[in-house]
């Protein structure tokens, strides 16, 4: 079995803001066509990671390779052109749409920016995209404030599609929406991803949402990936104590080993394993040794001293 093509790869990506280590050496690869989820509590660095991947902020260390090119080495104009292929959907459907532009203009904007199609056709294409996300053509002439949160997120999705990207990074795209609307938007995202043959990087604090939508999941804690693997493996048989605790704290699960306390301050990351201060199974070594993310076999990885690496481990 040949390994699937890597669309995007983060290599030892790091970002510090002053003393705050928001992202600490994250490495993973996105396969073309998959839906990859990054889950973690607020403050785990997942939004910072998303911004690093799109180079909306400059990394303090490491690199991002997109379709084989190192994004961090690109000049300003080259990077701008590369953005055509990576679009982002933000959490806040109220803030991310310019209130002074009609919905039609908003959706057509990426086409203007990247010179896609004939100028005269862009309006019509914008309406087609709106239709694809389930909004009537009349929506094109209206302004964002006339729409509900769910509708706005549909507009943001239509806009993200406009430049025909290979990758969409969705940062908490449904967490600002009513639960009843969340499923609709998630299903729409999945449909469109299939139809347009895109890859989706989905970031959420909500395990149920990630479980519903993703093929593979990475769990982040204090700026690091602590566990990574197939959805079935992560959700069915979590190995890292943090992942186990996360599942235990989700509503509707048995109340064993729930997570106590809050995520430590990223300006003062605990020594050794960052999770040890909240880990029910922490022991001496955890305060001294930093557990690396190790392969457990079967494309699974975990960063914990208690998890035995597979004998046939391949990195």
């Amino acid at each position, binding site marked *: 079995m040949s390994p699937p093509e890597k669309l995007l790869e983060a290599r030892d990506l790091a970002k510090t803001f002053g003393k705050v280590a928001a992202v600490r050496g994250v490495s993973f690869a996105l396969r073309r066509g998959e839906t990859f989820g990054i889950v973690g509590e607020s403050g785990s660095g997942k939004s910072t990671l998303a911004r690093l991947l*799109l180079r*909306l902020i400059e990394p303090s260390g490491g690199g991002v390779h997109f379709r084989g090119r190192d994004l961090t080495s690109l000049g300003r104009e080259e990077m*701008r*052109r*590369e*953005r*055509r292929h990576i*679009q*982002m959907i*933000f959490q*806040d459907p109220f*803030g*991310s*749409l*310019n*209130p*002074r532009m*009609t919905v039609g203009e908003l959706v057509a*904007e*990426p086409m203007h*920016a*990247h010179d896609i199609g004939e100028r005269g056709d862009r309006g019509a294409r914008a309406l087609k995209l709106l239709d694809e996300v389930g909004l009537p053509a009349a929506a094109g002439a209206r*302004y964002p*404030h*006339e729409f509900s949160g769910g509708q706005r997120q549909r507009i*943001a999705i239509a*806009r993200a599609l406009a*430049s025909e990207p290979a990758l969409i990074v969705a940062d908490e795209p449904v967490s600002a929406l009513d639960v009843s609307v969340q499923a609709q938007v998630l299903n729409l995202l999945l449909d469109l991803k299939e139809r347009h043959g895109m890859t989706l990087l989905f970031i959420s604090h909500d395990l149920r949402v990630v479980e519903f939508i993703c093929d593979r999941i990475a769990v982040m804690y204090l700026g690091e990936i602590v566990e990574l693997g197939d959805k079935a493996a992560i959700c069915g048989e979590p190995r890292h104590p943090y992942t186990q605790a996360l599942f235990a704290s989700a509503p509707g699960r048995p109340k064993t080993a729930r997570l106590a306390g809050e995520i430590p301050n990223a300006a003062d990351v605990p020594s050794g394993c960052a999770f040890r201060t909240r880990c029910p199974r922490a022991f001496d070594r955890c305060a001294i040794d930093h557990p690396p993310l190790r392969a457990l076999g079967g494309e699974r990885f975990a960063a914990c001293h208690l998890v035995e690496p597979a004998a046939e481990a391949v990195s």
Partner: protein
Amino acid sequence: MIRYIGRRLLLILPTIFVPLILVFLMLRLAPGDPAAQILGDQATPDQVAALRHDMGLDQPLVVQFVFWLKGVLTLHLGASFFFRQPVIDILPSYAFVTIQVALLALFIALVVGACAGVAAALKRDTPIDRGLVALAVLGLSLPEFWFALLLIFLFAVTWRIFPVAGYVAPSEGLVASFMTIALPAIALGLRQSALMTRMMRSSMLDVMSEPYIATARAQGLPERRVVLRYALRVAAAPFVTVAGLSASHLLSGAVAIELIFSLPGLGKLLIDAVGRRDYPVVEGAVLAIAIMLAILNLAIDLLYALLDPRVRLS
């Protein structure tokens, strides 16, 4: 939109009438008698009383007010006690001078303020930004009349580029006319531009931190387009509001400036008329200024609606 315009038009009425009524009352409550003023020291009390009767000044205040109000509504503003001609004939030439100076000053304030504000915001925390902000603080701290005297000293006395004072009408030569209003307009406008620089800078910084600016960048929009089409358009709305306030400062600042430069504008007319107890002229000048302010406010409100669809549609 029509309702919005209608509401704005209604709001004009208090803008015009409240100052007029205040002026009417203040003039009549203040000491000094226009009849005695006109007749001079030699007049007998009988002569004064007769003139007071002719001018309607012996009527009760309420009656005077009703006559006055009727006059305002029909634009019969009475005759100047001093010029002995109808006020309505005197006002236009004075108003024209003030409007000329105020518009040029507003133009200077807007252009300088917008450019400096945007530059400071885009170069945030660099020496350019700090320098511009420091200049703006300095500009805000200096009173117009002092600034005007400084300008006269430098450009009219030392370098003799502009005339020291006086006014030339555009009909007697556009360039010469422009030279007479240039310094007053700069004195008025630069100070307001300091205010506008600060406003533009902070509203640009506000907008640039909006999520949709980050979104626009993430989409790969060229930075020039992000600044011009996204940020500037949004930042313009608060800027326009301040410009409106500024314009009213320009009108009031024009009073002092017109005195310094001996410009025959509304401000100078007003000051002189107050000194002469020339009630009809004072009221007429205040009416003219109030109408100018009201039109200005209306224009700002409409511009605001043009800039922000949320105002237009709600």
